[in-house]
């Protein structure tokens, strides 16, 4: 098991265990609601653009065919292409991409997401089909009710349509009401969507020259735990002057250190020494989750 206090892009409650056959837990991070919505919006834009492109191509070829005196069959062919294209884009855009090796649509790729079987087994194409056919009730049905409710002039029918909208919203909003952020489709397909950030290996903040003389006392270095240390690491990597000043002030206050050096120098020196102490502790099996952990 991965320790619950590993701080990363994913908090512990968003981690889901996936043990590889080699026995290592990859502990994948669930995609956040924002990432899911973002990916969906990108996909929706791509679908709409594809539809517009299809319509334009079809319209131009129709005009071209009739201008060149093409027969009715040409116009008909154009119509068939449009109908089939519309059908394929609407129903199979998601299925085709998620059934591929990346298990992600373009929108999901943009946010580093992929679809994974909850059992940890291989993602099957049936699962992909099941999770995406349910978009019928999650997306298209509310959409058609909504359009109907807005254009309907008869107030009784419009009211009925608004009722329909409310009813199907239960399905649409399903992912926001369970801890695994499962869509109705995910629930039926046995899948969930995880975020696997694609990042480059960054430099190590510690230069690894042996520490000759310590600037800090043992008590000062023992003030914090892993959580604070890793938060400090992020602060140092971001290097925002305001945050640095704030954090440096807090730490100086807490450990009672008023030595020389600007905020960044002070913080990186403190980070380096505190990490050395804590990593030595790790080798002896001591892992202090945070400052409250004694």
């Amino acid at each position: 098991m991965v320790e619950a206090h590993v701080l990363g892009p994913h908090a512990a409650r968003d981690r889901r265990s996936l043990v590889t056959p080699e026995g290592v837990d990859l502990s994948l991070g669930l995609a956040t609601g924002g990432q899911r919505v973002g990916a969906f919006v990108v996909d929706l834009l791509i679908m709409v653009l594809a539809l517009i492109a299809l319509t334009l191509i079809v319209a131009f070829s129709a005009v071209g065919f009739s201008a060149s005196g093409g027969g009715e069959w040409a116009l008909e062919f154009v119509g068939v292409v449009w109908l089939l294209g519309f059908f394929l884009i609407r129903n199979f855009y998601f299925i085709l991409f998620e059934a591929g090796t990346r298990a992600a649509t373009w929108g999901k790729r943009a946010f580093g997401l992929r679809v994974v079987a909850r059992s940890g087994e291989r993602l099957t194409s049936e699962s992909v089909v099941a999770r995406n056919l349910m978009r019928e009730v999650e997306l298209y049905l509310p959409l058609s009710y909504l359009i109907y409710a807005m254009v309907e002039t008869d107030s009784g029918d419009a009211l009925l349509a608004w009722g329909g909208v409310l009813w199907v919203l239960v399905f649409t909003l399903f992912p926001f009401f369970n801890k695994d952020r499962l869509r109705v489709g995910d629930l039926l397909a046995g899948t969930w969507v995880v975020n696997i950030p694609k990042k480059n290996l960054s430099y190590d903040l510690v230069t690894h020259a042996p520490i000759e003389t310590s600037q800090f006392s043992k008590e000062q270095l023992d003030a914090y735990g892993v959580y604070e240390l890793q938060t400090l690491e992020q602060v140092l990597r971001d290097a925002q002057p305001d945050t640095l000043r704030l954090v440096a002030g807090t730490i100086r206050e807490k450990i009672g250190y008023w030595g020389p050096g600007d905020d960044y120098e002070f913080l990186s020196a403190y980070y380096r020494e505190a990490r050395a102490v804590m990593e030595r502790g790790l080798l002896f099996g001591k892992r202090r989750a945070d400052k409250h952990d004694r």
Partner: protein
Amino acid sequence: MSTQTIARQFREQRENDWQRLEAILRVAERKSVRALSDEDLLALPVLYRGALSSLSLARETSLDLELVTYLEGLCARAYFFVYGVRTTAGAKFLAFFRADWPDAIRSLWRETIVSALLMILGAVAAYLLVANDPTWFDAFVPGELGSGRDFQASAEELRRTLYDAPEGGTGLSFFATFLFTHNAQVSLMCFALGFAFGVPTAMLLVHNGTMLGAFFALFQDRGLAFELGGWLSIHGTTELFAIVLAGAAGFRIGWAVVFPGEETRLTAATRAGRTAAIAMIGVVIMLMCAGLLEGYGRQLITGDWTRYAIGWTLLLLWLAYFYIPRRRADG
């Protein structure tokens, strides 16, 4: 040796392998696994296991968050390639037609019976109502769908709707495509609505039946029942069967959510979803056939007996394909 020296060595010794794994993954993700050279392909599992061991080690000894996060992402990406899909698309395709599809439909037999009965119920009820009182007809058939086929129409006009192709023979492929996409969309909706405990699915099935029954009552009234039977048979046996199956798939998921039995609700839903999804791929294929029959066959073939023969032979073929037990290739 200080811990920091150990940490430095840990990273220096392995960094090149991580970078190489990352480069291989980048190619594999952007293009495909096939774009990799033999050398890279062989190196992939080895590098993956190396990265996994680095990750285990880093989790235990390093507090460098960036390093641990980087390795977690790298290992997860590699994992999905090393243990990814093995079967080729062709093998999957074959397995679907050979086993998966008929198996799924067979396992849905109870739901299929319920679904068929609901549609028949709707048809019989509507037939009786309309036969007794023709004013019911408008309640079952919306004006735009009837397109002139109502009780104001003469027997001669109704007869023409059964035999004349629209616009004298052209436009058939457009018509066929339209029918296919429309019906497929309706049946996909019928399936998906099954999740709402099956209630909307049942309503859709009954509704579909009532339109059928109402038309029959109308044509019966003008002595055209036999001819309507032929007109419906040629595509309807396939189309209605497909809709019944879509309803059955919907009931399966609705049932699993309400009555999961001995499994947890989630497991039951997942199992039902898998079966239902296979059935639905099949339904779309059936509706494609029905669309072709409806668009071309029905317009080009006008002999009543031929229409009956084609329709019912197809139904027999579907039934034989789904329900006749067969020997399994895999024992």
